[in-house]
């Protein structure tokens, strides 16, 4: 099968997965144990007359049978990217608008930390693998493992205690100072100051993953015959590493990086929670606590779609870098 067949197959697979997610999303939020009308009236449902309740049900199409009535409505709305209005958290605001508003802080935070941790993790992983058993390898291995296994929220709390409470260098919460009238560069600095601790937490927490994958994949490659061949040809060690080893060892890391970017839209729930950073993670948390199901449904769908798309990208990139995959 040629390149075109490979791409086509991957795209179709991704689309099928997306449809499955949409269908799952529909049923997931309809088997949840709560009456949407009771939720809508926030526990004061008892005060509504049966007629008023019936009216509300009709408004939201809840009087129709789950299948096909509600299901077809839902699929139609999804295709039109109409996810309705948030019920409780942001009454009368559209789910898409609420999502987009929370998306940028998360892209800034999770996106940047993924970029930083990728660069640092991959570079460290390469040096560690290359100088296996050396001082840098031993120490970075230990540190990475500790950071990787440490719960993010705990790391976050420790950093708050150190940098915010004790040293007073950086603010512990929010994405900018409340009530400040800063403008221009001062405002930018304020945003960066607030970004610093959550960004540091996430970057530290993510480094380990990239580092470990890069290091072990490089070690695998360094043991291959063609590396020995290259060395036997007299290629300088630096170029053995750069031309032959790293290029091949990067493949698993590329998949991991692409997938990580897919997860950006999932937000970083624990870190956003600890730092009160208003992104998609906190939005998900808030929507869940408020039982705002339409909002949750939208957030879940976008987050899953992002993962599926980036997964597709990973597959395609992998296929590009490693022709063997296309033939498989």
């Amino acid at each position, binding site marked *: 099968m040629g390149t075109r067949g490979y791409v086509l197959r991957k795209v179709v697979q991704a689309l099928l997965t997306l449809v499955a997610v949409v269908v799952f999303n529909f049923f997931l939020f309809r088997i949840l*144990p*709560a*009456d949407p009308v*009771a*939720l809508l009236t*926030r*526990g*004061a*449902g*008892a*005060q509504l007359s049966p007629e008023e309740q019936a009216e509300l049900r009709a408004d939201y199409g809840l009087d129709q049978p789950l299948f096909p009535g509600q299901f077809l409505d839902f699929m139609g709305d999804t295709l039109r990217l109409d996810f309705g209005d948030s019920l409780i*958290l*942001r*009454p*009368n605001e559209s789910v898409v608008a609420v999502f987009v508003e929370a998306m*940028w802080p998360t892209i800034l935070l999770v996106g*940047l930390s993924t970029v930083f941790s990728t660069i640092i993790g991959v570079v460290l992983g390469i040096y560690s693998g290359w100088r296996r058993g050396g001082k840098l390898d031993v120490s970075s291995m230990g540190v990475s493992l500790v950071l990787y296994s440490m719960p993010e929220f705990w790391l976050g*709390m420790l950093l708050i205690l150190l940098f*915010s*409470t004790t040293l*007073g*260098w*950086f*603010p*512990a*919460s*929010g994405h900018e*100072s*409340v*009530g*400040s*009238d*800063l*403008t*221009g*560069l*001062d*405002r*930018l*600095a*304020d*945003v*960066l*100051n*607030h970004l*610093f601790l959550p960004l540091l937490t996430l970057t530290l927490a993510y480094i380990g993953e990239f580092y470990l994958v890069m290091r072990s994949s490089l070690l695998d490659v360094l043991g291959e015959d063609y590396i020995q061949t290259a060395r036997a040809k007299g290629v*300088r060690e*630096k*170029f053995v590493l750069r031309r032959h080893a790293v290029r091949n060892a990067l493949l698993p890391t590329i998949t991991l990086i692409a997938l990580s970017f897919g997860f950006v839209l999932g937000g970083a729930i624990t870190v956003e*929670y*600890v*730092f*009160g950073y*208003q992104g998609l993670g*906190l*939005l998900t*948390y*808030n929507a869940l606590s*408020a*039982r705002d199901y339409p909002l949750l449904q939208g957030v879940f769908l976008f987050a899953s779609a992002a993962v599926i798309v980036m997964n597709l990208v990973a597959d395609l990139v992998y296929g590009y870098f490693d022709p063997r995959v296309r033939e498989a």
Partner: protein
Amino acid sequence: MRTTRRALAILVAAGMLTGLGLSGSALAQDASPSAGEEPLTFIVGLTNNMVTVNPLRAIETPEYELLSMQYNLLFGFSQDDMSAVPSLATEIPTEENGGVSADGLTWTIKIRDGVTWSDGEPLTAADIAFTYNLILDQNWSTFTNYLPFTDSITAPDDTTLLWKTTEPSIAPLIPPWIYILPEHVFGDMSKDEIKKYENFDPEAGVPVTSGPFRLVEWNKDEDWTLEANKDYFEGAPTLDRVIFKRYTNAETMVQDLRAGEIDFAESIPVELFRSLEGQEGIQTNVGGSFSYSQMSFNQCYVQKSCEQSTGHPALEDLEVRQAIAMAIDKENLVERVLGGYGTPGTTIVVPTTTFWHWEPGADALPDGDIEAANAKLDAAGYEDSDGDGVRNMPGGGENLDFRFIVRTESPDGVKAGKLITGWIDQLGITTTTQAVTDSKLIDAWLASDYDLYIWGWGPDPDPDFILSTFTTDQCGSWSDTCYSNPEYDQLYEEQRTPESPEERQGIVHEMQQILYEQVPEVVLWYDNDLQAWRSDRWEGFQFQPKPDENGDGGYALFQYGNFSYRNIKPASTGAGAAGGGSSGIPAAVWIGIIAAVVVVIGGVMFARSRGDDEDKA
């Protein structure tokens, strides 16, 4: 290929920088340039969210806090004991001053002159009549209870409100907890329109308010800013702004209080509160308890709607309910669940409202007396007739096995549930505990499909509402248990039309006594609200109600009113700078750091490409 990749990397780096720059300048545009001095700003941290600023939809604590800052009541709640005091009304109407007619059916209330809305329109008696009539005409059921027996409410002139009732009533002095709305804003709206009305549009001068502060900025789920009304009729606040900053976790809130990012922290969990006690520059405050937690027994036996009730038949028996109440060690609950910050509960009228609260005397049921409880059950004929270790209904009926519901949203309730089921177990009664969400509990409660559950109330300062929840016709509405007692219903009606406050007090006491003795539910505890603030920066807090001799029991903020907000001022002693100081490194340093990173990355890539070229050569 290599060149493309490098170009790409540079593009990405440049893009990130411009992205940051853009977001910076975009942010800068919507910030108003600071003119002159920094406004005097007080920042309150809290963990509750504010979802709506529509006065008729308010439910959550921060929403009510905002109402008390933005709007006014006809009568307010006094600072010392929450009794009715003049607010928009100029005096408390009595028969002597001609405020109440001899038959008790007509109330003539004098309204303040010269109060204006934030848009300059005058606030008159017509606005008050409009608001009350709106509640009644559109049937806003959360509020209609405040306006019972109403025949008509009218405003014959700007400073007179005429309220006619069909029965002699004390309702005007309860007082109605309904904030007065501007008729010129809400006047033409249908109920549906009001439900959907956001009531926040700073560009258009909305909300239109009368209170000492007004909402000017609202970053949903994050923070909201109120600006002082320097023309406020009860006196201009010293503060220029109050900002509420909402935290998703109390831990970070307390760290921010320590770091000085915020000035006040509300509703602090016990462990964190302990860590703040005795800290320099921080004042902790054990606030009064306006709320209670209760364990309710299914009492849905008599009403028509109780046909589908699944309550255990043993719970119909007073002896069983009393025995269970006796097994509960309330002191122990307060100690182990609330860390001591609370008091054991007795009745549904909180002791903070001293005038109305009734406390059982010498004939009080014993607390935590398992032995006496067992003896009571033995005497009532509940024996383990089938020898399976569980008591049976008298005459060898079914096991005493109860379904016990606790709320996942209340860790305190879950903890208490564990302790209580342990004690009930020692009575030879088994329980199955189910921890559920609020909405699930609402379902079970409305269908009377439970035996026991733990929930709580934060009642009004006046006992009328909370007492009403035990009347028969509240079953399926606000009633905790579907308790029904004609004598109690009768007393409830009587306390609404008393001759004097003392007479009403007597009836209210009697009603509490009935509930205490009949045990439709066990009031477990009254919990304290724990607050702390930067005393090195601020002073002038006004406490409500009056603190006890230990200085406890008064709320510094989140009161029935806005006493503190109008009086908080910078501390005269101490060097603490006023306002939330923001930590962080300055813009110039950040620019330096970013420039350094770009130079390093560029340098590395340049060196690499040179290296490759050398290799080729």
